């Protein structure tokens, strides 16, 4: 193993999983070799960009790539949705960060992914399967047309419970309903692993608490360095303060103070909103300017 040039990481594949979710496969052979389920990276898309944490959704040691699944919600991620194309590069990519998820003795596990958590739960599900566990996946989407990776999960899970808000695919309801059904059918579940928006993870922790099932959640607070140096990612776990980037990102869901996490995630909401509006306006102006420059296409029916 020798040190490759560690800058400008090439995007080798892209897939649009839904109107707001896209996948990037990025070349980084060393990281592909080092990555373990549950770890994350920090990405800077360009030199003026912010450092954003993204959970590693997959890694391919043979191809030397890591896969990131990104939901376009704020300015940075929407801009990436436009600018990140195959052959392009990411300015910064550092990781794998965080303590890998302990994929241990559990014999029967439920892997829960909702929204942006569906992709990152995948390596965990696969890891548990490889370790010989019976794996039940519970995946939550808003509706049928947002569903992705169903086949990928089916290939490595013993059961899959698909949940949609409107019932257009699988069962109608939230992932907590899926967990309820899984527990009902399998009273011997050892562990539940849940990744998704904080409200969802909170719901999962509440769903398992009465049954005393160990529940691991992966927290996604605001981060800057990801090396334990700034404390921006601190979370309350029981009566302790932990830094998610180096002490986590996995924690015992029954001890996490989710309300605190959700409040802290809103820290820069007004700045983020302003940045998004400003960027959308710039895009609109640019599109308008483009239109003016180009003569109206002949096919345009007006």
């Amino acid at each position, binding site marked *: 193993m020798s040190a490759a040039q560690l800058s400008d990481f090439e995007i080798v594949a892209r897939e649009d999983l839904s109107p707001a979710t896209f996948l990037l496969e990025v070349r980084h052979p*060393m990281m592909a070799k080092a990555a373990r389920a549950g770890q994350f990276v920090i990405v*800077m898309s360009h030199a003026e960009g*912010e450092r954003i944490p993204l959970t590693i959704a997959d890694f391919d040691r043979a191809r030397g790539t890591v896969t990131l699944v990104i939901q376009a919600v704020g300015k940075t991620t929407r801009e990436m949705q436009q600018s990140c194309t195959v052959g392009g590069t990411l300015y910064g990519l550092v990781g794998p960060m965080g303590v890998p998820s302990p994929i241990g003795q559990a014999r029967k596990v439920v892997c829960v992914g909702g929204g942006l958590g569906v992709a990152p739960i995948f390596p965990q599900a696969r890891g548990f399967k490889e370790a010989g566990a019976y794996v039940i996946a519970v995946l939550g989407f808003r509706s049928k047309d947002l569903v992705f990776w169903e086949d990928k999960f089916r290939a490595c899970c013993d059961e899959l419970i698909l949940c949609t808000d409107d019932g257009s695919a699988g069962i109608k309801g939230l992932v907590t309903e899926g967990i309820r059904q899984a527990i009902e059918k399998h009273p011997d579940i050892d562990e539940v692993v849940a990744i998704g928006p904080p409200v969802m993870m909170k719901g999962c922790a509440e769903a398992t608490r009465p049954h005393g099932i160990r529940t691991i959640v992966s927290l996604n607070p605001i981060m800057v*360095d990801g*090396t334990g*140096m700034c*404390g921006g990612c601190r979370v309350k776990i029981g009566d302790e*303060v932990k830094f998610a980037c180096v002490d986590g990102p996995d924690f015992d869901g029954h001890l996490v103070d989710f309300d605190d996490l959700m409040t802290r995630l809103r820290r820069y909401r007004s*700045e983020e909103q302003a940045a998004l509006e400003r960027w959308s306006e710039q895009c609109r102006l640019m599109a308008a300017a483009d239109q003016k420059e180009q003569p109206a296409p002949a096919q345009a029916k007006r």
Partner: protein
Amino acid sequence: MAAKKKKTIRTIPQQRTAAREQEAAARVKNFAEVTFAYDAKAALVESERCLMCPDQPCVRGCPVGIDIPRFIDAIAQKNLRAAYDVIAETNLLPAVCGRVCPQETQCEGVCTVGDTLEPVAIGRLERYVGDNAIENGWVNNPYIEPNGMRVGIVGSGPAGMACAADLAKAGCEVTVFEAFHQPGGVLRYGIPDFRLPNAVIDAEIDNLRKIGVRFECNTLVGRLFTIAQMRDEMGFDAVFIGTGAGYPSMLGIPGDSLNGVLSANELLTRCNLMRAKDFPNVDTPMPLGRRVAVIGAGNTAMDAMRVCLRLGAEKVTCVYRRSRTEAPARVEEVHHAEEEGVEFHWLTAPVAVLDDGQGGVRGMRCVRMELGEPDSSGRRRPVPVPGSEFDFDCDQVVYAIGTNANPIIGQTAKLKLDKRGYIATDDDFATSMAGVYAGGDIVTGAATVIEAMGAGRRAARSIKAYLGLGATLPGASPQALFGIPPGERNYVRVRIA
């Protein structure tokens, strides 16, 4: 030294030569450097103030033992290049150290002139020489004969930079790995532009590149590969760990996790490294407080306060549980912060951060302190005055109360740590793993730039000995040229660039 007539304390210029500064009212509106460099005339006058004491107390006061009288004499002889050569024997970063060293407790603190008058402005002279070296592109690059040894350095702060420089000059192939996307450590992400401009750091990094040091950023050692892998699989013959302190302490008082409470490290990293002060032209948002309370009185606290003022805060308050004399910051920084309008609450301890009901900060509750019996550090221990609690309004609270050991290397390598979690080393900076050395804040806990640099250099010397690269002499040898002791193999081939 060609001292023509004997100087005495009565014949030298009595006043310390002032350095021009930006006016406080103007400078709080910009991030440009506060203190201007000496010009040639000022440097010459100040150099006249050095008495060339035979016992050289200042040299002993300097953690790396710069031959201070000799470089000052060279300035007096108007031979700046010679002055630079003297400093470069022991100090890799004069432009940095001249700006950020706590001279009042080091060289200037023991200067003989200081017994009677104000001490010689050693730091300002050093900076003058360092800036001239950068401006003129002076570097003392020896002729380097590659020796085939490869050394990996973890962390690009002053400890890593110094270690890298010495090993590269000895002919090793050196690669520095840095977790951030830019090298420099605290110099880059912590210390703001108005104290240490980025251009200075860039110049020093460039100098290292010129002697063949490779910088690999975006590399989190421990997680991307381990220390053991560096040694056993990646072909590094030795490793130096200089990952710095980190993991800022929180107070553990009510309100710690409110939005609006953040560590100075976060504030400074956003502002300096991520340039969030230019938001929204860059994407990283900056937490802006109108009324800011900063807890602590070290350099980090002063930097945080002065950054907040420059970002437009109306009022910045410093809360420190001891008195001004115990403040660990450089005297000049406290003075500058006072000039810029920071309100200091000395002998005051935080009790709680007050909640605005929406997850944000409404104010602080503090208690007055008085000094009691001396504690283990020899400083009088502050004790709360009963019934002296008071509240004040603020919407942002910045913690600058120190750091704990960064856990990543400890989590991922079988290295012996001390009881606080810092890496344990012997007197030669060797860790418990063969061929692996460590120094700087990750060994000592948060300290200073010059101490980190000194540790990096001494570790480099141990590494050279470990790799069998020539006998090395203990202590800085007065004849050492460019920091390379005479016994070392490439000494005779040194060529002045």
